[in-house]
C-alpha cells in the first residue's frame, strides 16, 4: 500500500511551496521550509522503497495464488521472472499485477459454492488480513485531528 515516491515528493514540495511557505511570517521558519524542499529535491531521484519487504510481499502473493489455484482445481499460475532477480520498481509492478490476480481469484471463488471455493476464500481473506497487519508495523498513529484542525494535538519539543 505504498505511494509512488515521485508523486509523494512532488506533492510535499507543492504543498510547502503553495500552501505553507506563503503563510509563514517568520523568516527563519520560512527558510527552514525552503530547506526541506531543497533537501527533498536533492534526494528524490536517489531513493526507492525498501526492496526486502516488497520481495516478501511478492513471494507471499505468488505462494498464495499457487495454493488457491490448487484448491480451486485450476491450472497452476505462471509468474515469469523469479522475484529475487527484480529490483524495487519491478517488484512494485509485480505486486500490482498479483493484486489483480488475487481479485480475479476471489471473484472466481465467490462464483462457486463448494467447500474448496470456501477454503480458497478463507485463504485469500487471511492473506489480506496478514498483509494489513504486517503493514501496521511500519505505520504511525494518524494525526487526522491535527491535520484537519491545524492545531497541535500534543506538546512537541522545540526545534530551535
Amino acid at each position, binding site marked *: *500500500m505504498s*505511494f*509512488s515516491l515521485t*508523486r*509523494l515528493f512532488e*506533492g*510535499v514540495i*507543492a*504543498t510547502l511551496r*503553495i*500552501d505553507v511557505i506563503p503563510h509563514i511570517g517568520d523568516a527563519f521558519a520560512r527558510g527552514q521550509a525552503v530547506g526541506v524542499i531543497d533537501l527533498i529535491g536533492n534526494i528524490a531521484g536517489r531513493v526507492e522503497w525498501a526492496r526486502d519487504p516488497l520481495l516478501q510481499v511478492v513471494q507471499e502473493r505468488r505462494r498464495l495464488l499457487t495454493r488457491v489455484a490448487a484448491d480451486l482445481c485450476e491450472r497452476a499460475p505462471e509468474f515469469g521472472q523469479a522475484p529475487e532477480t527484480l529490483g524495487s520498481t519491478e517488484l512494485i509492478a509485480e505486486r500490482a499485477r498479483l493484486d489483480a490476480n488475487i481479485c480475479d481469484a476471489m471473484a472466481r471463488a465467490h462464483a462457486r459454492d463448494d467447500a474448496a471455493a470456501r477454503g480458497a476464500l478463507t485463504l485469500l481473506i487471511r492473506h*489480506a*488480513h496478514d*498483509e*494489513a*497487519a504486517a*503493514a*501496521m508495523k511500519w*505505520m504511525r498513529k*494518524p*494525526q*487526522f485531528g491535527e*491535520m*484537519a484542525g491545524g492545531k497541535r494535538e500534543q506538546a512537541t519539543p522545540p526545534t530551535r
Partner: protein
Amino acid sequence: MCHLYERDELLDRYNALTGLDIMARAVRYWEAFGTRKLAVMHYGARHCFERRGYNDMRMAGMGAQIPRMLLQVETAIERAA
C-alpha cells in the same frame, strides 16, 4: 463510546432515554457499513492524491492509513456477522 460508556451501557441508556428499542445487532450492522464507507473514502483520497494531482496532505495521510482502515473493516464485519 469515546471512553465514556461501554457499548452495552450506552445502548441501554440510549434506549431508556429515547424510549426506542435499538437492537445491538442493528447497531453493529450500521457500524460495519459506516466503516466500509470510510474505507472507500480513504481509497478515494489516495486516488485523488496519487492520480489526480491533488496536493492536500490530508489525502496522502488517509492513503497511508489504508491497512489500519481495512483491519477496522474486518473487525466491524466480524462483529456484525
